[in-house]
């Protein structure tokens, strides 16, 4: 049974964990960010961060430097650092965008972060010591519509971006002021800032749907994305940018996450995390639903239930309005909890139903016979 925490009735638009998973930052579909602390067996609200004017669209917590970055529809991003009194203090980041920010992601070494926006560009921000502020550089070409999702390559330079122009692109976000020249990877060798290393279309013939989430695998060779046409795709740079797509039977996914080099989780409007596997030839296939829970007793209409529903709803059929899955509404975000992208043992999902669930592969393994988790 996955552990689930309810944060009220408001949808959770974004969530992020601190390094040892004792603190959680969530945004309940408002301009506020709530920090929860796990103390004495329960989650207590520790602080409310109120700096944004409009809805917070993205939160990311840098584990090693313990900084939180938040971005919002008010075209701003703030970097929050904890002072000695344990209070979080914001620092404004000049993104120089004229539209809402949609997503934010710390780089693996936490020296910079990237913000996607409706202004059709990505702001890569780094800290300039001389002036003691965060400065941004823009990646604009050839993005033609809102950037919806971002993820960093493990080399701290390459950045994948999914967009509402139906494309997924890999850019170089190399900032020469703060880092050394990167060594070449399977994506290419020359990486000046803003160079597009690869572009993938979310469909075979120009159609398809908006890209909702994009994720680099732990080696950085593979990239997975999910689109609104209910598809999930994997591209492999080490195999000549070969792409494998499945157009699934499910409702569209909103988030995806690699949990090993060959396995990934996708979750979204279907309210249930799904496991997908990539085989040796690079083809992706569906491996199973991870929500083996509890179908509410739909079998056997008990007399008690019948009278209850007659009393409350004036009807005799016991039409259960709750879903058979743990989440009762769409899952909006998926985060790694325990382990890393090469070998994850736990991951968390947060949804529109205000629920945050932590899924443990060790428990799920026993529930799903016939699937091998190594």
């Amino acid at each position: 049974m996955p552990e689930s925490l309810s944060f009220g009735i408001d949808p959770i638009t974004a969530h992020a964990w601190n390094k040892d998973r004792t603190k959680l930052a969530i945004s309940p579909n408002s301009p506020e960010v709530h920090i929860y602390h796990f103390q004495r067996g329960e989650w207590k609200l520790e602080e409310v961060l109120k700096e944004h004017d409009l809805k917070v669209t993205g939160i990311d917590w840098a584990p090693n430097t313990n900084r939180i970055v938040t971005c919002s529809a008010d075209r701003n991003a703030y970097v929050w650092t904890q002072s000695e009194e344990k209070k979080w203090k914001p620092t404004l980041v000049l993104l120089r965008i004229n539209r809402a920010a949609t997503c934010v992601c710390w780089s693996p070494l936490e020296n910079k972060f990237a913000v996607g926006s409706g202004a059709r560009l990505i702001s890569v921000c780094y800290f300039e010591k001389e002036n003691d502020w965060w400065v941004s550089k823009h990646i604009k070409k050839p993005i033609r519509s809102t950037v919806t999702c971002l993820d960093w390559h493990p080399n701290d330079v390459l950045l994948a971006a999914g967009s509402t122009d139906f494309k997924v692109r890999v850019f170089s976000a190399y900032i020469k002021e703060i880092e050394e020249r990167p060594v070449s990877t399977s994506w290419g060798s020359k990486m000046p800032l803003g160079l597009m290393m690869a572009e993938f279309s979310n469909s075979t013939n120009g159609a398809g749907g908006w890209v909702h989430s994009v994720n680099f695998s732990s080696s950085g060779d593979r990239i997975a994305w999910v689109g609104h046409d209910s598809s999930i795709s994997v591209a492999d740079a080490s195999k000549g940018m070969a792409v494998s797509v499945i157009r699934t039977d499910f409702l569209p996914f909103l988030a995806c996450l690699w949990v090993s080099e060959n396995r990934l989780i996708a979750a979204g409007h279907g309210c249930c995390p799904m496991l997908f596997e990539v085989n040796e030839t690079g083809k992706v296939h569906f491996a199973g639903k991870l929500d083996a829970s509890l179908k509410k007793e739909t079998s056997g209409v008990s007399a008690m239930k019948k009278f209850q529903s007659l009393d409350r709803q004036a009807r005799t059929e016991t039409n259960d309005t709750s879903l058979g899955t743990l989440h009762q509404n769409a899952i909006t975000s998926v985060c790694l909890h325990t382990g890393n992208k090469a070998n994850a043992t736990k991951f968390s999902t947060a949804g529109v139903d205000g629920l945050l669930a932590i899924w443990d592969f060790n428990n799920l393994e026993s529930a799903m016979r016939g699937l091998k988790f190594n």
Partner: protein
Amino acid sequence: MAKNTSSSAFRKIDVDQYNEDNYKEDDCGESQSPPVGPDEKEIINFINQGKNIEALKTVLRNAPISSRNQMVKDAALNVVMQVLLSMKSSQIEEAVNALDRDHLDILMKYIYRGFETPSEGSSGQLLAWHEKVHAVAGVGCIVRVLTDKKRV
């Protein structure tokens, strides 16, 4: 504008075209489906010979999705409707099982287009088709009808 002439023609101007941020469709030019559409005579032959499943496969294979010509699309729609409505209810399931995923997506697009212009008894038949295609291809198929920019 409207005060002295009471004209509401200004409401029909597409102001987005003047916005420099406007997203323009990619003119890919890749036509993976034939721009002409299925051959009507060939299909009617199939139907008359009773080879309904063959007819269905042919119309779906030759569906003019990439075409910009609305008349071609309408003509194709008519042919597809003839095929769909000529099949007996008992044959629908067999026909659906004979199709692959891509063709099922195209078939679902035609089913929804068929709903738009109902004729006598057509909606009932289309609903039977819809049920069978949904049973095989799930909700993902219906989502793709809604998100796919290449309309049928």
